[in-house]
């Protein structure tokens, strides 16, 4: 529906006029249909799950439009997935499920929800698959260019800030991205959560998606900074397993990755349902 081109964001540019130096990072490259009010058109056909709930901080006219949007929604975005990541003493652990659903239909059980940005950074995918894949791939290109131009590895903070600024400039266009940028750089293991509303948060553990409350339960209960590598990977795997057990929008296979100073490595890829019963067997044996 949308093709790449260029559109001028006059308001954004005029308010930062003082800072106008051209960089390829500061472009707003989405072309909208050639009609009178393209921005409102984009808003009118896209509805996100969160828009259907009460949103206290939205201005009045946004709330009025919400009702119209609900009725005319042709594209529905929801973050039906479970992804998690956490940092600990020896690196970063990233664990994801691999189910894609469209309504109640399971579209695929083998989706790649982890996109490598470069050798030492991974991005996770939650929300709209196309949006996430495109923007994370784009981030990979920008990071590569940065390395070539500046002859040094880009930090996770800088990469996440670049993605954040790009997504912020598209914040009312109906994108659905709930991504985590996980990596290891000179400051150690780093983890940032990036959202399509423009939020960027740094913390030691995050879980994103419809199954995230379930994953948080297991993760918060077992997390410590000084975990061993084996225990950390097991914690990530168990948390996703628990989420796939409870959440119908998560399932498929559980993929676990580990990032340390040598880069990222895929640790395991297990079927979620088999994994659950394997853990049950283990518990029985331990008793």
């Amino acid at each position: 529906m949308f093709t790449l081109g260029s559109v001028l964001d006059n308001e954004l540019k005029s308010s930062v006029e003082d800072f106008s130096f051209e960089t390829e990072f500061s472009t707003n490259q989405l072309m909208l249909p050639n009609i009178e009010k393209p921005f409102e058109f984009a808003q009118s056909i896209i509805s996100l799950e969160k828009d259907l709930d009460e949103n206290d901080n939205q201005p009045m006219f946004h709330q009025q439009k919400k009702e119209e949007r609900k009725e005319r929604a042709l594209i529905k975005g929801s973050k039906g997935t479970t992804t998690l990541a956490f940092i600990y003493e020896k690196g970063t652990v990233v664990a994801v499920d691999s189910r894609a659903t469209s309504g109640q239909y399971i579209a695929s059980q083998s989706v790649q929800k982890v996109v490598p940005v470069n050798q030492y950074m991974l991005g996770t995918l939650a929300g709209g698959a196309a949006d996430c894949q495109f923007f994370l791939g784009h981030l990979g290109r920008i990071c590569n260019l940065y390395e070539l131009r500046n002859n040094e590895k880009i930090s996770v903070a800088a990469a996440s800030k670049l993605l954040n600024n790009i997504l912020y400039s598209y914040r009312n266009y109906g994108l659905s991205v709930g991504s985590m940028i996980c990596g290891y750089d000179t400051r150690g293991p780093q983890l940032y959560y990036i959202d399509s509303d423009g939020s960027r948060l740094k913390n030691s553990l995050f879980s994103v998606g419809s199954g995230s409350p379930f994953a948080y339960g297991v993760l918060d209960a077992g997390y410590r900074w000084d975990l061993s590598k084996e225990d950390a990977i097991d914690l990530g795997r168990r948390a996703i397993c628990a989420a796939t057990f409870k959440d119908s929008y998560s399932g498929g296979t559980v993929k676990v990755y580990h990032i340390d100073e040598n880069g990222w490595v895929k640790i395991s890829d297990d079927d979620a349902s088999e994994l659950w019963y394997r853990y049950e067997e283990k518990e029985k044996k331990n008793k």
Partner: protein
Amino acid sequence: MDSLVGFVGKNYVLIAGDTNAGRSIMRLKDDFDKLVPIDSHKILAKSGEIGDGNQFCNLIIRNVSLYRIRNETELTTKSVAHYTRRQLATAIRKNPYSVNLLLGGYDKKDQKGSLYYLDYLGSSKKINYGAQGYAALFVGSILDRFWKEDLDFEDGLELMKKCLREVEKRLIIGTRCFLIKMINSDGISVVEKVMINSKNKNEIEEEN
């Protein structure tokens, strides 16, 4: 869901904000600093959407820095408040920023602290005491009753804790952790990171 409380005392300004960052019912981060320093003697306390807050505060901070570099002089709190209000007002009908702010600052010239209340709609008011978010409902009356002009720092801190205790006690959404910052002639300093725990009606414990 964000709570910000601030008031002006004798040669200082105290501002407190809760440290939660969340999405719908989930708390994503519980050590989130909402009291952003604009320069050495001004704080912009933000509440509302995280993304808008980050980007808007960055906009203000960088433009204030640019002014300082170009003109070799610091802006007063009043000027920054007016500039911020103007940015919010011009954006509201085009590209609204969903942020409500408390701007606190100390001016060396006047040797006085000042506090401004700024709204996402572009309203701005110089206040002696005030709050943003749900905290405003509970804390407004406490400040009306107990705030006096030229409060000492100890009395001011006690009043602030009284306000935060009330927020923790009555707001059903759990906000236990607050960060209190002070601005005075020496600049910005973190006073306390308070975790409030009201176990029963009469006993109230605080842990730092």
